């Protein structure tokens, strides 16, 4: 286009990004470089890359280059609350302890299975750990995210049940309790916690259900040495409670996207 190529000196000052370059010269060099490949070639290998590298190199030394976060933790936290670990461990310990106590007391005449007794209340604690304000320090952060809501609550509940159910299954098998006796109360209390949690908050719901369990299941057992509500004859009642709980959860599903459900 034009035979007037910028002088070496001018091109170097341009490449350095010198502030004192007059605007008209800057503009002239820039527009010339846009159309003139040989001049761009003169510019390229010059100090630009070296200067950029000289600035970057010290930063690279103390900036960690994307080390991989621990994979197992990333996988795990998509299924459980990051703080639920100790609670799940406690649930396993309680299950183990009840099996041991059952085995020790097996000779006694009034055979109340401790495993049956604790089966309903274990998942309640787990669900409280999964979505309760008292146990999750970051509840407000979590509640404001798009993933908050029933899908995440159910995911975390599934995470709790994956720990609780196999534990109870082994315990039930060791103590000879039929699955219908412990599985239904366990699931009914789980859905009950979530259903009630949608209304009054998960922590309060868990507290209420633990009190209910103590009054209706634990107290009569201790007083009468019988477990009337865990009798196979009341199975339809547990099924009805389970269905009612699922229905309530479906009706109140948006409650878990707000702060109130954490209470």
């Amino acid at each position, binding site marked *: 286009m034009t035979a007037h190529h910028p002088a070496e000196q001018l091109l170097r000052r341009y490449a350095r990004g010198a502030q004192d370059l007059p605007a008209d010269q800057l503009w002239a060099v820039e527009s010339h470089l846009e159309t003139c490949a040989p001049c761009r070639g003169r510019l390229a290998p010059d100090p630009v890359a070296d200067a950029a590298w000289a600035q970057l190199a010290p930063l690279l030394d103390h900036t960690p280059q994307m*080390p991989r976060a621990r994979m197992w933790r990333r996988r795990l936290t998509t299924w459980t609350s990051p703080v639920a670990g100790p609670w799940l461990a406690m649930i396993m310990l309680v299950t183990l302890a009840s099996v041991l106590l059952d085995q020790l007391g097996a000779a006694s005449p009034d055979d109340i299975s401790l495993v049956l007794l604790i089966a309903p209340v274990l998942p309640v604690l787990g669900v409280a750990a999964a979505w309760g304000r008292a146990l999750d320090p970051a509840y407000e*952060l979590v509640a*404001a*995210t798009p*993933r908050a809501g029933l899908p995440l609550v159910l995911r975390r509940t599934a995470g709790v049940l994956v720990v609780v159910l196999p534990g109870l299954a082994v315990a039930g098998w060791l103590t000879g309790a039929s699955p219908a006796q412990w599985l239904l109360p366990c699931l009914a209390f789980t859905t009950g916690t979530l259903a009630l949690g949608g209304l009054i908050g998960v922590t309060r719901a868990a507290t209420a259900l633990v009190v209910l369990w103590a009054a209706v299941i634990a107290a009569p057992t201790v007083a009468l040495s019988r477990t009337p509500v865990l009798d196979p004859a009341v199975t339809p009642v547990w099924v009805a409670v389970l269905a009612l709980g699922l229905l309530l959860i479906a009706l109140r599903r948006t409650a878990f996207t707000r702060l109130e459900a954490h209470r």
Partner: protein
Amino acid sequence: MTAPTTYAWEIEARDLVVKVGRRRTAVDGVTLTMGRGVHGLLGPNGAGKTTLIRALATVLRPASGTLSLLGDPDLRSLRRRIGYLPQEFGHYRRFTVREFVEYMAWLKEVPGPEIPAAVQRAVERAGLADRADDRLKTLSGGMVRRAGIAQAIVNDPEVLLLDEPTAGLDPAQRLRFRDLLTELGTDACVVVSTHLVEDVAAACTDVVLLAEGRLVFQGTPAQLAAAGTAGHAGDSPIERGYSALLASPRQRGTW
């Protein structure tokens, strides 16, 4: 260049009433609009700043009135475009900064392959790159708050809500944070609640003054400063404007 939007304002509230518990009305009939820029939310303690920010973060349901954010009626897709830093934000002490921000990015439904780069960018912008792989329990209060800021910006939000973000930052960090605010405010609607008037004067393009749940004033920092006269309490023009606007008959108590 940014694409044209289908809404007039990023945040549009009309006669917004938000209750805390059953009885207490913390935000009482607030009507305001906010666009891009940095909006300082000022007011005395108990004025309803935190409740208003929680309502804007969609974690509290308004009792009445309308609230339109980014013109998006769908809660889930709207929340992907919001960043939120609560006043008292709990964190997982055993997580590293990177794991924490990464977990929040997952919760915010940032697409999986983009998460590592988004996390690195957010951590760098919050000035925590050299501590990214330290556990949160080893960090100082100001650094934890910066980790909170990193999680708020990890999804490149269009509406960024920061509740008392400068609490616990030392003066130098506050200056850096104001620069970050100005930078973020060029292409997002940033709402910062604070009780530090000088933060507002330095970094905000717009001031919203709340008292007892009501909107007292909305305008530029210069307009706020113009409201005060030499007779009002305060060390700077903007502080005098603040005390002039708050000195209404409804104010009670000696504080």
